């Protein structure tokens, strides 16, 4: 499973990244967490407000930081 965190280094993007890592650890699943900072790539997903979370190329949430519990449901 590939999880992408879209965002350009704002505070909430970092928060989302750590929430994602926490969720992956708690579920004990095999997943790669990537960060996407390039605006062109972010826009290609149709995302207009960062941060956003993309699981296996599917946008799950954007413009907000979902909690660890919510992220678990996306995985």
């Amino acid at each position, binding site marked *: 499973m590939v999880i992408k965190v879209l965002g350009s280094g704002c*505070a909430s993007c970092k928060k989302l990244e750590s929430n994602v890592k926490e969720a992956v650890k708690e579920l004990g699943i095999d997943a790669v967490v990537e960060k996407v900072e390039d605006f062109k790539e972010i826009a290609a997903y149709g995302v*207009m407000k960062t941060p956003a979370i993309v699981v296996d190329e599917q946008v799950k949430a954007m413009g907000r930081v979902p909690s660890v519990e919510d992220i678990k449901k996306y995985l």
Partner: protein
Amino acid sequence: MHILTQMFGWLNDQLLKMTWLFELVRLLVEKVFGLSMEDRVGGSVHFFIYDTVKIFILLSVLIFAISYIQSYFPPERTKKILGGMKGIKGNILGALLGTVTPFCSCSSIPLFIGFTSAGLPLGVTFSFLISSPLVDLASFLILMSFFGIRIALAYVVVGLVLAVEGGTLIDKLNMEKYVQGYVREIKSTDVEVEEMSRRERISFAKEQVKEITQRVWMYILIGVGIGAAIHNWIPQPVIETVIGGNNPFAVILAAAVGIPMYADIFGTIPIAEALFGRGVGIGTVLSFMMAVTALSLPSMIMLGKVVKPKLLAIFTAIVSIGIIVIGYVFNAFSYLFI
């Protein structure tokens, strides 16, 4: 009817103007610190504590309520609503949606790319980009709290007019070729995300309060500090000569100082309040506030990544001139508002 007006007045005084807090801080300054309110030190200590507490209360309550509402208007939905809109109707709708769509200058790039690649006219995008930081529910309620309903309404109306006119003008100037090339190459994508649940909306609103407080608390303290200095320490003749009625260029000066500054309405309001309290023209004060919120150096740098310098310069010029014109008009007709 009379009772209703009285009730509304009382609610407005207590909830928005927070007269109870004013009295409470007065007691603190006079009884606990032993300072007189008539005194410069006492006066500025009161201004500092009262304004800081009041702004933080307004910030928490307003951002929470507004974020909850905004969670129904993500930019993606705005994009869909605006799609296919042309002409002045598109500009008006763009400006109106700008007031409810959450915005911070950090997201102006993906937003601009999203709008442009979806084929929205450039003018509609700019109407949105002007109104979004300038006018929202928070600025309306904040202005009502500090300046009363007339000025608040007038601010919202002229802010929207500026957004519509600015966008229309950019449309007329045919600036499409001044968008950075790579923006056009991005394919438009629509994403479907699950609707947020009520619980998610509440937690989103809480997160927003936390995030915005962390981002702006320092600007608020600086703003209140400057406000307190203007309120009690700068001599009246200096104010009148530099930014008051004695200086015909006061509005231009206020705009020039405000344009590069990066702060939002919460950090700007204490300065505006103090200037107004010292008799500076309402137009000058509004120009300053609009200049601070609508334009800033960081947002221009951001925008410069998606548009070419010429368009950036034209956009900045249109908004700046608009703000200055608004200032002079308000100063001329100030008797209607005060």
